């Protein structure tokens, strides 16, 4: 059955352990070739949405579909098989392994050597730092460099759906630009991107659709440009003065 959405989260209720619910009946749908940006205050449940979507956290109720196929209850490995990849918030490089091994592990699920080699060249080209420190231990890199390696690792596969949890955190402006550029490229290649960003303005400028999350519910959703223009949202979630940059 073909669906008009690549990723659908419907009526999700989820929480950690026995503690109270974090997501309370949340619905998010991502069509192909679209970037959906989740914004919201700290602790709103954005990362939790992504964890549920990638199977790291099993929802207490609700359904998850990838390209129309019901994947509720899948583990991350199966999710990957269903064409969904997830880049974690914070730092998730394999610290005691080299940059090379990290990047190659990104292609763990691939078998075609030629394809792997091609992807390696691609990410090396994209992030000069990665090429430069190819044999270095990933744990020895700076915080931003590790994020770059992580992003590079996630680019080794070309999934249908990509979940990005604050990919630009800790990156310098140059690298941030590259990341957003890649997001756009993925979209242009038909991928559905679910992006969580605290760099909200920048993210909404890039995204097609926006979703404001608060206390585990979708507060408002709509075209990203509309959200950007809403002064009330701006004050509560995007920081102070709407749409007028402070400097430059």
């Amino acid at each position, binding site marked *: 059955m073909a669906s008009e959405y690549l990723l659908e989260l419907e009526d999700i209720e989820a929480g950690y352990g026995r503690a*109270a619910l974090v997501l309370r009946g949340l619905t998010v749908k991502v069509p192909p070739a679209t970037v959906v940006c989740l914004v*919201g*205050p700290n602790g*709103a449940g954005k990362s939790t949405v992504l964890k549920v979507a990638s199977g790291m956290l099993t929802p207490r109720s609700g359904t998850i579909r990838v390209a129309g196929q019901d994947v509720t209850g899948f583990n991350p490995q199966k999710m990957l098989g269903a064409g969904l990849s997830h880049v974690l918030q914070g730092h998730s490089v394999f610290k005691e392994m080299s940059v090379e091994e990290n990047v190659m592990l990104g292609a763990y699920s691939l078998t075609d050597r030629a394809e792997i080699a091609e992807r390696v060249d691609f990410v090396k080209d994209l992030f000069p730092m990665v090429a430069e420190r190819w044999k270095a231990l990933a744990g020895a890199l700076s915080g931003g460099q590790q994020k770059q390696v992580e992003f590079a690792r996630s680019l080794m596969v070309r999934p249908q759906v990509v979940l990005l949890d604050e990919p630009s955190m800790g990156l310098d402006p140059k690298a941030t630009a590259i990341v957003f550029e890649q997001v756009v490229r993925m979209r242009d290649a038909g991928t559905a991107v679910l992006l969580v960003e605290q760099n909200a303005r920048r993210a909404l400028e890039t995204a097609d659709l926006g979703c404001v999350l*608060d*206390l585990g519910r979708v*507060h408002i959703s709509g075209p990203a440009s509309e959200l950007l223009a809403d002064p009330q949202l701006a*004050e*509560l*979630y995007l920081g102070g003065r709407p749409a007028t940059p402070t400097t430059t």
Partner: protein
Amino acid sequence: MPSDSEVRRGSVLITTLKIVGVLVLAAAVLSFPSVAGNAFILSVGVVIMSYAVLATSWNFVGGFTGYMSLGHAAYSGLGAYGTGLIVIHTDINPWVALGLSGLLVAVLAVPVGIASLRVRGASFVIVSIAMVLILLLVFQSWGEVTGGSNGLRVPRPFGPEVLRPEQHERFFYLHAALLATALLVWWLIDRSRFGIGLKAVREDEDKAQALGVPTFNYKLVAFVVSAFFTALGGGLYALWFGFLDPIFQFSILVGSYMVLMSLLGGIRSLFGPLLGAVIVGYALEFFKAEYGDTQFHLVALGLLLAIVVLFMPDGIIPALTQLARRFAPQASSIREMTAADLAERRRDADADADGSSEENNGTEHHVTEGARS
């Protein structure tokens, strides 16, 4: 959502319950010798008290700093041998000898601590095990002084007119007194700034350092205090039992009993190790009575430990408290606020602050004062 006063009333209730609990506990301990049916049960009581002392002493390092020592038998053994040797070779009063031996062990714990607290986690565990094994070898081989594998007989501190059952009773109270002291000190540390610094070491040592906690000194102090109490526990036991054999004094099993007891009860709670000691001490007797002439008692002990680790890693007391919390008024529900709610609250708060700016200045003043001190 429960109001603040409800929460406060709840905490008063809890405090009262705690005090009553402590009193009941004290009464139970004090009356045990008169309730115990015969000298044997009394002697089991002494053994359990001794376990409780050791476990509580262990918990000064294990509970506060998170450094799990499997080798605390080293300090109880040293305390025991120290006491015994002083009593045998000098005219010093046995009780003074006990204190002296505790101090000696504490002094010895300083270099040992300096060496072993340099490493964390697994390395520390291994070093602590090594400590016991090395002492075992030394005490076994250095026969001229320690009696070697013949063992060492420690003269009893009471005269022959004190019969064995009465001796048990006296030692029961002595152990109880030592336990009470250890508990008191633990409690004092637990609520102090020193204690919170130690707990910070347990959680993240580097971060604690960056916040200005002299982690190494703190750890060392906790370690030495722990060794001191452990040694006193060992020494007291030596005076009671009257015979020391290196194999049993310096045994990893004894050290791991301390860990098991503390973990079982809960290493973050004051009475955790005590509760654990009572349960494990009783279980050991029970297993022996049940499976005495097969090795099955080891299996039973192993299973007990495994169950604790797998299902109650925080111990019984925390598990119970958590259960109790589920019925008590919940204060944490104030977490449930949206950004809009919070903004509202802040606006109100800011308005309040403007209204009473004097009070506000007072706080600010305090901040500045802190910076200069």
